């Protein structure tokens, strides 16, 4: 096949991206474990990942730029490079948020907590992790049919977000935990919601990569088709 070298470079780039994705998945796994068990040691393991992921992200983006300059990619090759850059950004940002959450867990370990809020936070962390993992899996396997389901799964995160925010704003009488913990909990809720969104976007990138359409357009066409068929 002509352009074998270019194809190898694209394959290498994709492999680097998925490796980074796997590492962010591991970080999120540790984040959930740290939150479930209030495990400071596990949380501290993730401190510093932000810088590492940013460096990896910069390497991938640099390679994308070099390939665009040298190979003048078009069509599916161009979509791949565009998508790799976009997904890299989502992975790096998810890694950053994960570190922020782990830092909050480590720094508030000794603080008094609101039990209901902690339950909601842990549930939200598990769900956000699942959405992220599924988004990455959709991208890895280019399984665009499943991309449509991601938004519905993200809706559960949004519900938990509202529930947690309500508990933060309206603590039970005599409860609510330490103010510092509640303040950090509000930030964690926000970060978890963002991680889930990044997962949805990563899965949606697979739709653009395969079809050249934005997932929003694909969703609209899908819904329109059902209406027409009725």
């Amino acid at each position, binding site marked *: *096949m*002509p352009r074998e070298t270019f194809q190898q470079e694209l394959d290498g780039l994709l492999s680097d991206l998925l490796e980074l994705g796997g590492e962010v998945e591991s970080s999120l796994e540790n984040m959930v474990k740290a939150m479930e068990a209030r495990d400071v040691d596990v949380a501290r393991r993730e401190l510093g990942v932000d810088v590492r992921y940013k460096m990896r992200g910069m390497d991938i983006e640099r390679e994308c730029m070099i390939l665009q300059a040298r190979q*003048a990619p*078009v*069509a599916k090759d161009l*979509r791949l490079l565009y998508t790799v850059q976009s997904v890299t950004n989502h992975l790096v940002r998810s890694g950053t948020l994960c570190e922020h959450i782990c830092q909050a867990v480590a720094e508030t370990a000794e603080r008094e907590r609101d039990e209901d809020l902690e339950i909601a936070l842990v549930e939200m962390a598990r769900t956000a992790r699942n959405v992220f993992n599924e988004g990455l899996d959709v991208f890895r396997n280019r399984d665009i049919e499943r991309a449509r389901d991601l938004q519905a799964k993200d809706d559960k995160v949004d519900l938990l977000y509202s529930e947690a925010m309500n508990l933060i704003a309206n603590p039970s009488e005599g409860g609510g935990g330490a103010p510092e913990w509640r303040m950090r909990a509000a930030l964690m809720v926000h970060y978890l919601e963002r991680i889930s969104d990044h997962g949805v976007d990563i899965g949606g990138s697979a739709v653009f990569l395969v*079809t*050249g359409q934005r997932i929003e357009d694909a969703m609209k066409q899908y819904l329109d088709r059902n209406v027409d068929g009725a």
Partner: protein
Amino acid sequence: MSEVSREQRETRRESGGTPAGDGATLGMQVQDLSAFYGTFKAVTDVSMDVQANKVTALIGPSGCGKSTYIRCLNRMHEVIPGARAEGKVTLGEEDIYAKSSDPVVIRRRVGMVFQKPNPFSKSIYENVAWGARINGFRGDMDELVERSLKQAALWEEVKDRLKESGYGLSGGQQQRLCIARTLAVEPEVILMDEPASALDPVSTQKIEDTMDQLKQSYTVVIVTHNMQQAARISDYTGFFYIENMGDPGRLWEFDETEKMFSNPERKETEDYVTGRFG
């Protein structure tokens, strides 16, 4: 690149795959065109709406009929012994293959620039003036020569040596001289068969810039093997392809350039533009 709404795109696809354009008028309409060399059919069943004041690029592997096709658009194909074309090509209101059509008039209305610059052994001025003169131009010849050279982005480089031979110019300048010569007879459509393939990058860039200006006044159809050139300069792109060895060439896909180079409909087009074959 002009914006075309999704609705327009959908309408276009439903109407048979030829771009309806973004409000542009039709420059030429080609219907079921086939081209032959003796009994050999080189191109088959090409239908294409060529939009006025747009650049249409034709790409495809060697031997797929692009040059043959473009030569059918001004009846140059039939000058080869045994060569003929079937189908309908409409320029304005006129079917250029109708019995009443005069090929000489058609070739004036549809000018052509070839791969290798081919100036006459005359002065720069006469190279430009000659075609207009034999076509009966009676106006201000100095003004026409200056205007044509300006449109071809050559005026500044030659204005002080118009009486010198066209052969004294560089390859890129000679090609722009040939473009000026074509413009001087005031055609409606300009056909270009790989006009920059023999030129250096700077000259190529000048030709490309020229084309961008030309489409303000003319309809341009260009054959190019340089896909990045097609992507840079054209509004519409047609991909010619031969499915099996020995088959005639076909127009495999025709769409806005933006679409052809970002998300073409057919696998063969994608394989070609991404360099996976050809």
